[in-house]
Every structure is written in structure tokens, then in C-alpha cells.
């Protein structure tokens, strides 16, 4: 028995040692090492890949690569600038006598959809077909279709006949079940289509708007307006073992979705028939690496100057692996198994020191790319409230100004966001027309003495309400009940306590909060906004009276209604980015500065990491994938991965030795005692 036990232990030890000797922590097949594959991760599985509905970053990493758009943002230029993609040029607005405008898109020739079995519905051979203007019109009709449920349908209200088409469609479906059972494209045809979406011929699409809206062009740079083949929607209907269209995109983009197991992985493969890759196709802006490269981008290694003018794309495959948890994702990035990564809170100080990469990370050749999102986070006042709102007149204004003067957004960023953010002086973030880096909002500078003076002038000396003799009591409503959120709200409350104000946090569920907002039963709240498109209108509309929550249920939760502001807004929103528009924006900002419907806090800043072998990692800022501009050096990656991941085996041998060392004396002692 003694001998048998010792032998067994030794055999086990050797077996484990041998098994581990062949181990590796590389999660990818060895055959892929030399290939131009970008390895990335995602945490949330996309809910849908239907371009008419998909509205999240998780979806956009697929839809943004699989679906092309008529227009695109220039990869490198800031402020953001539109350039043609599937369209031959960026169209100009043609004014109509009735006050409307129209845009004529000329579509490039020779654009093909990804090869897909759905085309057997029209082509017989089931391969692919050319994109025509009707495919764009079909997608626009889908945006209007109430059953598609597009979250952006409201943004197309200015397209002539958009809403009437939706109403007609719904009515016809209700009246005639046979009509409702027809494929979507037939229904749209029979319903007469959208009056303002005119297919002039195979390569010309005219969009007619009932009023001028220059921002409309931005929507043609979003996958919402991509060409969609009617065949894909009709074929992928979830019947007869076929997938749903929401899980099977058929686009024209530089990549096609080769693997979609969204709970686990997604793979995009280079589309060999992409218009940019086809031999003989003229170089197009959307298919060529920009030639105008900022020297700073080259110095910071965000862009490699040698790529100027080269045909896109460079990667053969983009491999996304699902990582639900931050810690393993970050650790795999550190091992070199993900090419790009985000910094987790727990490791922030180890990765970033003095607002730059720590020496250890820099020594590994890593890069830190910072981007300010087109966003604004703010504290809002309910301007309908009799104490803090418009009805309180000068008292209310001074109270808001005083409260604004004591909020230290810099300290907030340091405490809760590792300093990731740019202090906001106005609603406009950097990169948006009208943003002025030199402007300092006089009510966003910390000044306790001035705040106390203003509060006294408002009739609340030392924060005391003269009518009651008690501190002025205010309510700070939040739809977030987590401990972390409450701590963050406490930060603001403590700041106002310096003024003697008694601000009470009222945490409730999102629905309860929404109900309060609908009833107007709130005074203070915090909110954030990330722009859909890079235009000042997409920020100022949050303060326009027509969008006030109390009037229309719109996104102006502060219920700010100011006639002068609205007049400026309506003039500004239909102007191009010129001096006149700049002047109007300045006047609008001057109004918000004094009126203080918001206490502007910060613009969110994204910190992204990439390894030395990743080329052209410059981030876009908008929710806009830039993979077609990116490249990797697989040789360098493979070499560094091998250097960084040599298995450490001695602890295993030590542990096995310890087990043997403990067991043998035990066995000997036991038998000696027994005998």
C-alpha cells in the first residue's frame, strides 16, 4: 500500500507535468498567426443587425463595416467633415419655391451587394447584383414602416410624405390582411412609396425635404440609410430554417459577416467585391486612405504616413470575441491577444501616469489614444419649477448661477472617472462647430464668495429661505439607485451644502423618475447626451422650447423656454457652418451662460489602448468603426506575443515536489504507528 501510494503520487505528478509542458495560453489557432487579422472583443451582444433599427455601439461594429453609406466622415479631419462614399459627391441643397429643399445623390457605378443566397429570389443564380437607387429608397421606406420600429423614424419627418406613407401603410395593412402578408417591398410599392424619395433612374436618388435641414446629410452617413436589397428582407424571414434579416446582414461594405455567433464570437471577412477593391474602379474618397495627414497624427503614431493614397481595406479579417467581464478582457490585451483595449478602473493607475502611458506600458510599445466624445453631461434645473425655474425670475436666475459656481467638475472627474473628461464650459463639445477652446464660462469657475453673494441677492442669505428661516430645501431627482451613483450625487449635494442649501437626493427607478418628469415634479437632475451627428443643432435642440418635456414630451428635460434663444436656434439650424452661424451660436451660448438652465459638467473622454503592431489606430470619436483604415503587423505581433507569454513552469514542479514531500513521511509515519 505504502509503495503503491508513493508510486501513484509520482505518476500523477509526472502526468500533470507532461500535460502542462505542452500548454499555451494562446487562444487562437496557430495557423492564423501570420495573417492580417485584427483581434478585438465585445461585451454586449448586438440586439439586431438590421440597419434600420441598430443603434448601439455593439451593433455598429458590424453594421458600420458591412453596410456602406452614401456619405462618410473624413477619417482624419476635425471638426468632422462629410465626404462622398457610395455617392459620387456630397450633394448641395436645391431650394424649392415652397420653402422645401432637395438633394440629388448620384450613385457610383458598379457597386455590388455581398454574394448571398437571397439573390436567388431575383437573379436565379443566387449570387449578387448591382446596387440601384431603388435599394436606398427601399431602406428609407423601411425607416418609415411602423412595424420595423426604427428609433430614428422621427428624424426623417422633414422628408416629404414620410409620415403619410407610414400612416397609409398601417391603414392598408389593417384593412386588408392579404396586403399585410405580402413581402415588404411589394407593400411599399402598392402603398405608393414616400413622396419625397424619388428614384430618378438606377443611379440617381432625389430626397425632397419640406423645409431646409442641412443636418439631414449627416443621416446619409449612418447605416440607417444604407442600400438594402429587398431580396434579403424577403428571404431572411425566420421561416423554413432561414435566419431573420436582423441576424443576417447583406450589404455592400468592405467586410462581410462570415461568422455570427453573437453570444460568443463574430468574424468579418474582407469583401473581395467591394467597390474599393475592384480592379479598374477609379479611386474613390471612401475607398482610399486620406492623403492630407496631420503631422501630429504621424508623430503620435496614430497614423502611418506611408499609407497615404493607398487603397482600402488592409485587414483580411476582423475577429471579435465576446468578453463579458472587463478584467479578463484587459488581461488578455496585456498578453497581446487583443490588439486594442480599454483601460479598466482597477488598473488605471498602473497604465496611465501623469495623463500619459506609464513607463512599463510605453516600454511594451503600447499607444494611448484619447478622444473626446461629442457629448455633454450636465446638471439640469426644471425651469417650470416655481423656486429654481423661470417663474422665480431674477431670484431663480441668481440661485441657479450661485449653484453653478460651486460645482467642481474637475474634482468630480478625478474622483469618479480617473480624470477622463474635458471640463465643459458650454453645451458644445470640442470638434463641434461653434466650440471655442478659449472661452471660460464665468459661472463655471469655482467661486464660493461670488456664489454666496449671488445667493444673498436671490434672497437666500447663507442658504436660508427668508420665508421659513430654514435652509432652502431642494430636491435632486435621479433614476439611479446604485450605491456608486448615490455617492456621485452626494458629491454635488456636499458642494451646495457649502452655500447652506439643503438638497435632498430622491433616488427612484427609471420609470418612477420618468413619471416625475412627465408630471413636472422635479427640481434638479443630471443627464448626458451623446450626439448622433457632429452639428451644434444636435446639442441646442435639447434646449429648444418645442422640445420641452412639459410641452411635447421631448428631450428638453430642463423645460427651458426662451423666446430669444428659440429665434436664434431656428435661424442657426438651417445655416451652413459660416461666420453668421458662428455669431448666432455665440449669442445662444451667451444666453445659456446667464440663464443657467444647465450646469455644464464635462465632455466624456475615451481612452483607448493599442499595441505597437496596430497601424492607423486614430479613433473617430463618433460611434463609427474605422477598421477599413487600420492595419496590423502580424510578424511583430507573433514575436512579441511569444516573448510575453513564455509559460512559467517551476511553481508546478515545486508544488508537485511539495506534495510528494508531504505524502511520503505521512505514509511512513502512519505505517510505523500501525506496526
Amino acid at each position, binding site marked *: 500500500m505504502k509503495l503503491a501510494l508513493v508510486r501513484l503520487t509520482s505518476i500523477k505528478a509526472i502526468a500533470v507535468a507532461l500535460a502542462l509542458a505542452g500548454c499555451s*495560453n494562446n487562444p487562437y489557432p496557430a495557423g492564423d498567426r501570420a495573417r492580417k487579422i485584427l483581434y478585438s472583443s465585445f461585451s454586449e451582444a448586438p440586439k439586431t443587425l438590421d440597419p434600420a433599427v441598430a443603434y448601439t455601439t455593439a451593433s455598429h461594429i458590424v453594421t458600420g463595416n458591412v453596410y456602406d453609406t452614401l456619405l462618410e466622415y473624413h477619417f482624419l479631419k476635425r471638426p468632422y467633415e462629410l465626404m462622398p462614399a457610395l455617392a459620387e459627391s456630397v450633394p448641395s441643397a436645391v431650394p424649392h419655391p415652397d420653402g422645401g429643399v432637395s438633394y440629388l445623390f448620384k450613385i457610383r457605378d458598379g457597386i455590388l451587394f455581398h454574394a448571398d443566397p437571397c439573390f436567388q429570389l431575383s437573379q436565379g443564380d443566387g449570387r449578387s447584383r448591382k446596387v440601384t437607387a431603388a435599394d436606398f429608397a427601399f431602406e428609407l421606406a423601411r425607416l418609415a414602416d411602423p412595424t420595423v420600429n426604427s428609433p430614428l423614424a422621427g428624424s426623417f419627418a422633414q422628408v416629404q410624405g414620410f409620415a403619410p406613407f407610414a400612416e397609409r401603410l398601417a391603414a392598408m395593412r389593417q384593412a386588408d390582411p392579404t396586403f399585410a402578408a405580402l413581402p415588404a417591398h411589394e407593400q411599399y410599392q402598392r402603398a405608393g412609396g414616400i413622396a419625397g424619395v424619388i428614384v430618378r433612374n438606377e443611379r440617381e436618388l432625389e430626397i425632397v425635404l419640406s423645409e431646409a435641414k442641412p443636418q439631414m446629410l449627416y443621416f446619409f452617413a449612418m447605416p440607417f440609410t444604407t442600400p438594402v436589397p429587398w431580396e434579403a428582407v424577403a428571404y431572411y424571414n425566420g421561416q423554413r430554417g432561414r435566419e431573420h434579416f436582423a441576424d443576417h446582414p447583406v450589404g455592400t461594405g468592405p467586410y462581410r459577416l462570415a461568422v455570427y455567433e453573437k453570444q460568443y464570437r463574430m468574424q468579418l471577412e474582407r469583401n473581395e467585391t467591394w467597390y474599393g477593391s475592384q480592379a479598374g474602379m477609379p479611386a474613390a474618397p471612401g475607398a482610399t486612405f486620406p492623403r492630407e495627414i496631420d503631422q501630429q497624427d504621424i508623430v503620435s503614431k496614430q497614423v502611418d504616413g506611408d499609407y497615404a493614397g493607398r487603397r482600402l481595406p488592409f485587414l483580411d479579417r476582423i475577429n471579435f470575441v*465576446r468578453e463579458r467581464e472587463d478584467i479578463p478582457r484587459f488581461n488578455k490585451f496585456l498578453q497581446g491577444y487583443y490588439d486594442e483595449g480599454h483601460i479598466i478602473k482597477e488598473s488605471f493607475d498602473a497604465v496611465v501616469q501623469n495623463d500619459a502611458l506609464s513607463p512599463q506600458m510605453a516600454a511594451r510599445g503600447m499607444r494611448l489614444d484619447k478622444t473626446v466624445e461629442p457629448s455633454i453631461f450636465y446638471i439640469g434645473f426644471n425651469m417650470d419649477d416655481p423656486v429654481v425655474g423661470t417663474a422665480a425670475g431674477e431670484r431663480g436666475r441668481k440661485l441657479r448661477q450661485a449653484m453653478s459656481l460651486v460645482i467642481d467638475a474637475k474634482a468630480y472627474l478625478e474622483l469618479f472617472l480617473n480624470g477622463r473628461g474635458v471640463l465643459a464650459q458650454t453645451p458644445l463639445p470640442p470638434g463641434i462647430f461653434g466650440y471655442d477652446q478659449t472661452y471660460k464660462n464665468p459661472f463655471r469657475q469655482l467661486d464660493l464668495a461670488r456664489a454666496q453673494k449671488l445667493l444673498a441677492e436671490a434672497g437666500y442669505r447663507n442658504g436660508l429661505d427668508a420665508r421659513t428661516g430654514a435652509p432652502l430645501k431642494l430636491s435632486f431627482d435621479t433614476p439611479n439607485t446604485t450605491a456608486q451613483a448615490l455617492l456621485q450625487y452626494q458629491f454635488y449635494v456636499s458642494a451646495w451644502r457649502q452655500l447652506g442649501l439643503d438638497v435632498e437626493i430622491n433616488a427612484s427607478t427609471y420609470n418612477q423618475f420618468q413619471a416625475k418628469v412627465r408630471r413636472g415634479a422635479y427640481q434638479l437632475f443630471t443627464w448626458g447626451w451623446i450626439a448622433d451627428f457632429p452639428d451644434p443643432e444636435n446639442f441646442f435642440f435639447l434646449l429648444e422650447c418645442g422640445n420641452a418635456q412639459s410641452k411635447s414630451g421631448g428631450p428638453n428635460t430642463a423645460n427651458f423656454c426662451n423666446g430669444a434663444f428659440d429665434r436664434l436656434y431656428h435661424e442657426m439650424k438651417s445655416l451652413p457652418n459660416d461666420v453668421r452661424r458662428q455669431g448666432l451660436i455665440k449669442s445662444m451660448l451667451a444666453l445659456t451662460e446667464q440663464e443657467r438652465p444647465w450646469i455644464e459638467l464635462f465632455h466624456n473622454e475615451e481612452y483607448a489602448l493599442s499595441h505597437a503592431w496596430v497601424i492607423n489606430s486614430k479613433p473617430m470619436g463618433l460611434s463609427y468603426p474605422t477598421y477599413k483604415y487600420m492595419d496590423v503587423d502580424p510578424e511583430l505581433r507573433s514575436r512579441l506575443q511569444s516573448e510575453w507569454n513564455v509559460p512559467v513552469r517551476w511553481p508546478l514542479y515545486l508544488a508537485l515536489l511539495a506534495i510528494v514531500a508531504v505524502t511520503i513521511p505521512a505514509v511512513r509515519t502512519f505505517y510505523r504507528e500501525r506496526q
Partner: protein
Amino acid sequence: MAAYLIRRTIYGLFTVLGVLLLLFVLFFAVTDPDDIARKAVGERARPEVYALWKKNHGYDRPLLLNRAYAAADSRRYSDTLLFDHYRRMLTFDFGNSDADDSAIARRLKEGMGPSLSLTVPLFALGLVVSVLLALFVAFFRETYIDRAVLVLCMLTMSIASLLYIIGGQYLIGMLLKWFPISGFAFDPYLAGRFLALPVLVGVVAGIGADVRLYRTIFVEESNRDYVRTARAKGCGEARVMLAHVLRNALIPILSNIVITIPFLFTGALLLESFFGIPGLGSLTVEAIQGNDFSTLRTMVYLGALLFIAGQILTDVSYALADPRVRLT
């Protein structure tokens, strides 16, 4: 035994109906359908989009009584959330996910393989290691080995399982670089590489309680008269432990094992989530985090069914293993 099984199955059916009622109260009566719609279509959608989503997913119907129909019309009761909930669950027509509209039955089918590829080796290896270690400790009872293992067991039981996972990933995946930190593959060679670490972590995390339990059973068993008789007859220690003690001690161990088997199908919540295994455990975690109530209802319901099945199986296995047990 047949009568017993029928009776237990009928009891089980009533339990299932009760579970379904509780689920209904929790997921329909307490939860606001607006919450579910908001999670599904996003917070920036307009109210009419929420309304349409609720209509498409049947959440716009009344809970118990549909007053849109006349009193004599059976649809007054059948076109309600309660009736539909019972009908769907009892016919295993789980419908679509509230989060992304994917068919829940397909998600279950897809997730079962990865879950089983983790839980079966974890279960088997955990069982073998804990029984062997318990036997070993029982063999050396009252020695420093016994005491050292007991202290270690108490230590392993006192540490939160999340710490094992994060610690295991950091130590074995990050520092020692033996296995990938996380991931999954359907290719058997790669799958083995991915599953080694979660299985190892799962075995270590669960070993303490099992070894303590089995050791107690083995020690108790080795003090019985028949063991003394075997020794008196000159039977060797190895034979005493393996042939006599282990065999008789298996009966109480069986109850601990059989009830676990059905839950192998539902996966391991934390392990799957942290190691990126696309199984039913991570499906459940995701459903909880994403307010995917239709998936969550299904998982809770299946959990209840499997628990009832596990209890019946345990009773049957007792009767099969121990001739003294009669199921009447």
C-alpha cells in the same frame, strides 16, 4: 415503485404550477412592461415605439381578464397574460427573447453544448478528486495530513468563488501563462485548452465542502463493525477502504451527486460568465443583467423542473443502491 413515481410526478406537477404562478407574479404583476420595452428598444426611442414593441410581444394584454371580449367569450380569459404564460411554459413554447427577439429554444439548444462541456468534466473531476482526497484523509485520519487538509478545506470554503475565478485567471492565466485566461472553441483541441482553467478553478472552489462531507461519511463508515471484522480477518487497508468503506459510503454520497446531475444542463453562472463560455449559465446572467424577462422566466422554470426531476431521481437511486430502501 411505479405508484410512488406516479405520486411524486403528480406532486411535482402541482409544484410546477405553483412555481409558474410565482413567476407570473414576479415577472408580470410586479414588473412594469414599460421597463422591459425600454430595455429592449433603448431609452431614446419615442413612446409610440415602446407601445408597438409591447403590442408585438404581447405585453399590451391585460393580466387576468380581457374586458375587450364579452362575458361569454372564452377569449376573455384566454387572451390574457396569465393564460398565455401557463400555455407557453407547459407546452415548452418559450417564444422569443425580450432582448433581441431570438428564439429562446434555439438559444437553449446552442448553449447546452458549451455548458455541458464545462459542467460534465467539472462534475466528474470534482467528484473523483474529492472522493479520492476524502478517502486519503480518512485513511490518515487523526494525523497531521488529516488536520492540514481539514484546515485547507475550511479555507477553500471561506473564500468567495469570484475570488477563485479572478485569482485563478490572474495566477494561472496571467502570471504562469499555462492556459488562456478566457474563451471558448468548439474545436476539441482548442476547447480543452480553454476549459482547463475553468475546470481547475471550479474543482478547487468546490472541493472543500465535498471533501469535508465525504471524509465524515468515510470516517463514520470505517468505524462500523463490519470494517473491524474485515480488518480482524486480515483484510489489507487498501481493500478495506476501497472495497468495503467506499462501497457502503456511496449511498449517502449518491444523494449529493444525483441531485446535482440535472443542473449540469443549466451551466455554471459565474464560471461561464467570467471565462467567456457561451453556455446557459452566461445566458442566465445576461438575461438578469439585460432585463430579458422571457429568457429569465424560461431559465427559472427549467431550473424548477430540473430540481423536481433531481429529487425524484435521488429517491429512485436510493432504492436502486440500497436494497433496504423501499419506495411506497
